[in-house]
C-alpha cells in the first residue's frame, strides 16, 4: 500500500492504495467518478480520458502513483454551479451522444482541445479527437458539437 495525494475536480484527496492500481481504478473504484469509462485498457479508445494537469491522458495508461500530486478533471468536474460546460451543452444540442459510453472521453478531449484552440477547422477537430473511438455516431455530430462549443465560448 502506498499513499498518494490527488486533486480531483477541485477537491483534495489523500488515499491509501495498492501500488499496482491505475489512475482509472482510483478514480472509478476509490473515488467513484464512474463517468470515467474503460473500453479497451490499452489506450486505444480514449473512453477513460481525463485532464491531468491541463493535459489529456488515458487514465488506463497512467499508474496512480504517477499521478501523485496532480490535478485531475473528469467529466463530473465540468459542471460548475449546476451549469453545464459549453462542450456538454453542445453535445446535447447537436446530438453528439448515442450510446453515451465514449461520450465522457470525447467531452474531455474536446475540452482540452478547446482550451488551446484558435478558430479550429473541422480537420483540426477531427485530429484532436482521433485518439477517441466511437462506434455509434460516425463522429460527424461530435465534430459539429465541438465547433458549436467553440462558438458558444467565443460568443459567436
Amino acid at each position, binding site marked *: 500500500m502506498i499513499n498518494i495525494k490527488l486533486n480531483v475536480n477541485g477537491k483534495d484527496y489523500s488515499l491509501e492504495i495498492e501500488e499496482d492500481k491505475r489512475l482509472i481504478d482510483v478514480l472509478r473504484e476509490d473515488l467513484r467518478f464512474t463517468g470515467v469509462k474503460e473500453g479497451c485498457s490499452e489506450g486505444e479508445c480514449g473512453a477513460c480520458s481525463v485532464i491531468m494537469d491541463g493535459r489529456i491522458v488515458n487514465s488506463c495508461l497512467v499508474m496512480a502513483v504517477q499521478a501523485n500530486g496532480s490535478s485531475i478533471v473528469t467529466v463530473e468536474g465540468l459542471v460548475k454551479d449546476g451549469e453545464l460546460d459549453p462542450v456538454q451543452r453542445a453535445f446535447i444540442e447537436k446530438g453528439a451522444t*448515442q450510446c*453515451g459510453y465514449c461520450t465522457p472521453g470525447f467531452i474531455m478531449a474536446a475540452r482540452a482541445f478547446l482550451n488551446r484552440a484558435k478558430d479550429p477547422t473541422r480537420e483540426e477537430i477531427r485530429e484532436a479527437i*482521433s485518439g477517441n*473511438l466511437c*462506434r455509434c*455516431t460516425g463522429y*460527424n455530430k461530435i465534430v459539429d458539437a465541438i465547433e458549436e462549443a467553440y462558438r458558444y465560448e467565443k460568443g459567436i
Partner: protein
Amino acid sequence: MKKRGRGIGLSFYGTGYGNGFPDVSNAWVRLLKDGKIGVYVGGAEVGQGAMTAFVQIAAEALGVPHDRVLLEIEDTLTTPDSGTAAATRQTYNTGNAIKIACENFKEKLKEVAKDILNLNSTAALEVKDGEVYLEIFPQKRVSLEKIADFLGGNILEAEGSFTAQTTKLDPETGQGAPYWPYTFSACGVELEVDTITGQVDILKAVLVQDVGRAVNPHLVEGQMDGGYAMALGYALFEDLNLKRGVMGNRKFSKYLIPTSMDVTELTKIIVEDPESTAPYGAKGIGEPVMIPVTPAILNAIYDATGVRITELPITPEKLAKAFSDFEKEG
C-alpha cells in the same frame, strides 16, 4: 498512381423477426399523481434513440408536450415485454404499441372526465394539451392534474399491444410475406485509390434513407452517420484475423474500427413516405443505414481501377495486389 472513381449501392431491408414468428410489442400507459403520464415498455435503449422516439410518439398520441411523458424501460418487474431491440423493430413495433396504448388511455381519461364534468357521454370529448375538453362547448374542460387528483389513489392505466404482419415462408419455394415494412436506402461515393499502396480515400459520400417519417430527424441523421462509418470499417479494414478458430485480432490496437480521421463528411438525405401501418408513418432505420455503403465503395473501386474486388475486407495489400495482377493480365 492515383485513380478516381464513383459508385452507387441500393438496398432494401425487411423489418422484424420474420417468417411468421409472433413479433409482438406491449406497452402500458399510466396517469401519474402530478398529471404527468408514465409510459412503460421493455424496449431497450442501446444508443439508437429508442427512448426519445418512444417519448415523442407517446407525447404526440396523448397531445402533451414531450416533457410530460415519463418513460420507463429498464426493469422487467415494471415493464411489459416489448420484444428485442433488434431487427430495426422498436420504432415500428413498440412505437405502434405505445400509440395504441395511448389511444386506449385517452378513452379511459374521457370516461373519468365525463364524470368530473357531469356529462352523460364521452362523445365529442377531446384530449389535447394536457386537458380533456368538450369540443362543442370548450368551457367544459378538466386538466390531467385535476383528473389525477380526482382519482386519488386509484390507478388509471391502459395497455397496448401490436403484432407485426409476417407469414411463414413455404419451405420448398420460399414464397410468402416474411417481413413488413421494407425500408430502402441508396449510397454514392467518390473515392481515390492509390494503385501502388492500395490505399482508398473517400472524397465524397452521400447517403439517402427512406424513413417513412422521421420521428426525430437529428436522430435519423445520427444513425446515418453511424451506419456509414460502420460500413466503412466493414469494407476497408475490420479484420478478426481468424485462423483455425482463433481470433488473432481481439483488441482495439489490432482490430481497427474507423476513427474520426477515417470517416469523411457525409451528405445525409432523408426521404419521407409515411407508412400506413407505422406509428405516424415511421419505419425503422437502424440497420438499413449501413447496408448500401459497402457495395457503393466496391463499385467505385471498380470504376476507378477496373478491378472487381470480390472479397472483403478491401485491405490495401489486397487491393494493391489485385491491381498489379490486373495490370499484368492486361
